[in-house]
């Protein structure tokens, strides 16, 4: 017995090494599964507030650019509002419940993000106290950005669209063909559109928007434009590259959106045993 203990004692460094590696790999696996929660992430109080200070300083330099974009968006919204008012004379038709899905929107600011990995994440300075919940969609006026994964009191962490694990249900605007947007981990400006059948003939320049089939994004949020269409190795589908409209290296202010009917939809999916893509 003593021999065994002596033997183990001699090996203690190696055993500790194996133990620490197992812990680390276990944390990686947990972090990468869609439902898993990371133990250490940037939504924690210390790291969150440190990142916030950094973004406060760097954000100062892009203020005028942000202002320009916001005023452009204001102008566009005003135009739509004026259009709405002039529709008063049209007779009012009650909406049926399928159009009732309503969306809550929260504004936020990105305080930290990674760009250069295969699994990129975003940290946002809004947390549970501001009404953020897991599964909310993240977008800017330029396009879809990601989906909230984890929420702490004052911060939240989202999976970026630039994450090989995220699928976003989407469609080609002109032809209403559905597919899934997934990043292939190569270029931060380009993603792939999967599951578009071969008989469809999309052309470069076509707009790709969110489909509204998933409960994360409302329908019609811009994702990008088709960059190239090639026949893929798979016999059934096309290989489509989409130029993303959101510039991930310049993200600053974002909107978080929640579908208020998501619980009903989710429980229906559970009953029907369908696993939703995000």
């Amino acid at each position, binding site marked *: 017995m003593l021999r065994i203990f002596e033997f183990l004692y001699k090996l203690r460094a190696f055993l*500790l090494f194996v133990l620490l590696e197992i812990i680390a790999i276990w944390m990686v696996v947990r972090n990468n599964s869609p439902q898993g929660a990371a133990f250490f992430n940037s939504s924690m109080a210390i790291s969150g507030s440190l990142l916030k200070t950094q973004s406060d300083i760097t954000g100062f330099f892009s203020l005028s650019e942000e202002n320009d974009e916001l005023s452009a968006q204001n102008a566009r919204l005003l135009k739509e509002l004026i259009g709405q008012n002039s529709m008063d004379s049209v007779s009012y038709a009650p909406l049926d419940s399928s159009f009732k899905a309503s969306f809550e929107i929260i504004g936020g600011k990105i305080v930290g993000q990674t760009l250069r990995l295969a699994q990129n994440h975003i940290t946002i300075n809004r947390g549970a106290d501001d009404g953020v919940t897991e599964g909310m969609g993240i977008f800017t006026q330029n396009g879809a950005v990601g989906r909230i994964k984890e929420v702490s009191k004052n911060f939240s962490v989202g999976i970026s669209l630039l994450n090989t694990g995220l699928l976003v249900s989407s469609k080609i605007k002109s032809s209403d063909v559905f597919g899934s947007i997934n990043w292939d981990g190569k270029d931060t400006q380009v993603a792939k559109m999967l599951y578009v059948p071969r008989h469809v003939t999309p052309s470069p320049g076509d707009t790709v928007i969110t489909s509204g089939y998933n409960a994360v994004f409302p329908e019609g949020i811009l994702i990008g434009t088709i960059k190239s269409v090639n026949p893929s190795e798979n016999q059934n589908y096309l290989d489509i590259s989409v130029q993303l409209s959101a510039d991930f290296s310049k993200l600053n202010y974002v909107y978080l959106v929640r579908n208020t009917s998501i619980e009903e939809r989710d429980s229906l999916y559970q009953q029907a045993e369908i696993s939703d893509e995000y």
Partner: protein
Amino acid sequence: MNIRNLFSTIIWGFLLLVIQIFFLKNLALFGVALCFIYLLLILHLPVNISTISLLVISFLVGLTVDMFYDTGGIHAVGTTFIGFFRPIWLRIISPTGGYDEGTSPTLQEMGTGWYLTYIVPMTFLFSLLFFTVDQWGTMGVFNILNKSFFSSILTVLLAILVQALFYKRRRSIL
């Protein structure tokens, strides 16, 4: 290691972490070369540090970076491996006559030739492990090797630059 050394090591390590987390996080030369300058914190610990404490320090440093990178434990996997492999590699490339008590394996102490044989394989191994875990199952071997190769080159270049700039000056003051 005396108190003064301990103190300067802690401050130096803290500085490296701050630079890594706030300045180098999204830096990638030509989209392939990342820089892991914080590895110097582990690689420059004194030669005679015990393996156990080296492993614990490596693991904690990796976790700290992971926290800010939102990578779960990818950095920790790499740094722990570096911590385990370092004593073995040091023994293999030990100069004739061995190491002096309390030496740090730095450019100034050991000379350029020896330092390169020390740091290049270590950073390459780390990068290889890092990108393998990061891109598990999503990308080909070529992509991983490509990124590891250029990342370790960038890290080594920056490591030499940092030491050429700061280590000498620190010595002349002391």
